């Protein structure tokens, strides 16, 4: 499997179907695991790191998983490839920028990935389109059982799975749901929602863009506590919160329509107009307008574009994707031109509509 082949496909979490997919982009489950025989990453020698990667590779090769997945040596990848995998959320920033032996095991359908030598020796993640935490956890549990049959994890009965950071100890489980919340942003209620959620120990953070820059109105909601509650209880907790957020977003959308349907229609149509006609456009600006278009399509205000197309564009207009797709490295300015071309091709009258839409 070549990374170029990945670039052509949309990947599980960007498929744009599954329950509540007008608001919920994807459900994601992550487990942190460490091998008992080695120190945690910060105390690993280069030999330790290499030995961990080799042990994981042996374990996976001994399973049917070995022939179904691709073992990618991240230390041998160039900047562009690493950024590409990051944009697809198959590897983290930390894994991309680390030094020494490190790897990612990729499922060709991008339903899961396993990072080796990230903050912990192993970071397993399972992705599912739309709101489907149960399936995501079920598949994660199976994947974990498989690996566990070949590897000895650092574990005590008292503290559970031992992790490099005490914030992950216990289950090592992080459940995240990625939501598209443009109306809560537009009605300036998002901060209020954040604060309410932090009180119940659920973290909300922006996706795409480091730190303070929230792009595309995409937010990730996840559990903060990993110790003392079982996997099912943690799942339950996040599952209870999401429908409330969805409801808030739906109410905010209704409010925008009641306030002025014409204004809203104008707003989302102009966003589409800019994306279709711009000659140069940055990835931030693209995300900004794509978000409005996505809301417009989901609210029945735009019918010339299908949701899978919008989701695909969210991904394909990211810097590394754009360069992968056109097969060469591009300067920022050249990327902005290429991005505008790409958008024009995929959004103009016949390019964007998908006859199989949902």
């Amino acid at each position: 499997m070549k990374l170029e082949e990945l670039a052509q496909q949309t990947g599980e979490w960007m498929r744009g179907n599954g329950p509540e997919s007008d608001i919920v982009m994807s459900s994601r489950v992550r487990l942190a695991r460490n091998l008992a025989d080695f120190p945690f990453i910060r105390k690993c020698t280069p030999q330790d790191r290499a030995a961990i990667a080799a042990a994981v590779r042996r374990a996976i090769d001994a399973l049917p998983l070995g022939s179904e997945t691709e073992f990618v040596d991240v230390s041998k990848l160039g900047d562009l490839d690493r950024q590409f995998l990051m944009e697809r959320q198959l590897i983290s920033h930390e894994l991309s920028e680390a030094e020494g032996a490190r790897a990612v095991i990729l499922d060709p359908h991008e339903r899961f990935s396993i990072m080796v030598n990230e903050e912990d020796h192993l970071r397993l993640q399972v992705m599912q389109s739309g709101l489907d935490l149960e399936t995501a956890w079920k598949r994660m549990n199976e994947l974990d059982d498989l690996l566990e049959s070949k590897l000895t994890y650092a574990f005590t009965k008292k503290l559970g799975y031992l992790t490099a950071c005490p914030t992950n100890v216990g289950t090592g489980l992080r459940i995240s749901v990625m939501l598209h919340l443009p109306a809560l942003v537009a009605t300036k209620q998002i901060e209020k929602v954040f604060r309410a959620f932090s009180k119940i120990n659920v973290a909300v953070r922006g996706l795409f863009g480091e730190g303070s820059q929230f792009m595309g109105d995409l937010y990730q909601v996840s559990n903060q506590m990993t110790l003392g509650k079982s996997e099912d209880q943690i799942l339950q907790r996040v599952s209870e919160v999401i429908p409330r957020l969805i409801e808030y977003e739906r109410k905010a959308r209704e409010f925008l329509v009641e306030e002025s349907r014409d204004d809203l229609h104008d707003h989302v149509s102009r966003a589409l107009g800019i994306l279709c006609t711009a000659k140069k456009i940055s990835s931030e600006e693209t995300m900004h307008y794509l978000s409005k278009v996505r809301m417009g399509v989901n609210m029945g205000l735009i019918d010339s574009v299908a949701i899978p197309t919008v989701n695909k564009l969210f991904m394909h207009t990211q810097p590394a994707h754009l360069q992968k797709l056109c097969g060469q490295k591009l300067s920022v300015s050249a990327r902005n031109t290429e991005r505008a071309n790409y958008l024009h091709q995929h959004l103009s009258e016949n390019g964007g509509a998908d006859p199989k839409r949902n």
Partner: protein
Amino acid sequence: MKCQHCDKTATFHITELTHPDGPAILHLCEEHARTFFNQEGPAHPASALTNLLSKQLKLEKVTEELANVDKKQCPMCGITFAEFRKGGRLGCPYDYIAFEDDLEPLLINIHGATTHSGKAPHNLSGTPQRQFRLKQLKEEMKDAIQKEQYEVAGKLRDRIASIEQGELLENDDPESPLADDDFQSEPLEPPSDPQST
């Protein structure tokens, strides 16, 4: 009222109760409020953790005690508690045993709990106690070889091999490493009062 960072109208009036110098009142415009929430947010778990650690330790311990905690060192990987505090990441699984008393209040703070509930691996031999026992036995064996006590070294080698092959230790996962009958070597730090947290 104007935002305290710019000329825009302050729409967020925040009372920060966790401020180290007592409650702080902030008046911010939307943009600066966003920055404020983000820096406080969980985007950087390591820095949030080190903040939490320093706050908590300052609250609960006097300076002298703090310096002593900082000097504690894991006998397995050699990391000191101060190094952990700075980086927010532990050095090896045995740190959870070596720093048990000092980590407990932190775990309560983060998780509101100190004991695991949930999944366990089928293979329970991956305890840090076992790894530590192996390290000790290997050192003892090296020592025995140096002293030309080959019979002792041979016995130790067999013991190591059987532990490595998964023989269950009597107290493989005890509450404290000192409860292990197998534990003959001297503890590397003075046993502290178990109630002192």
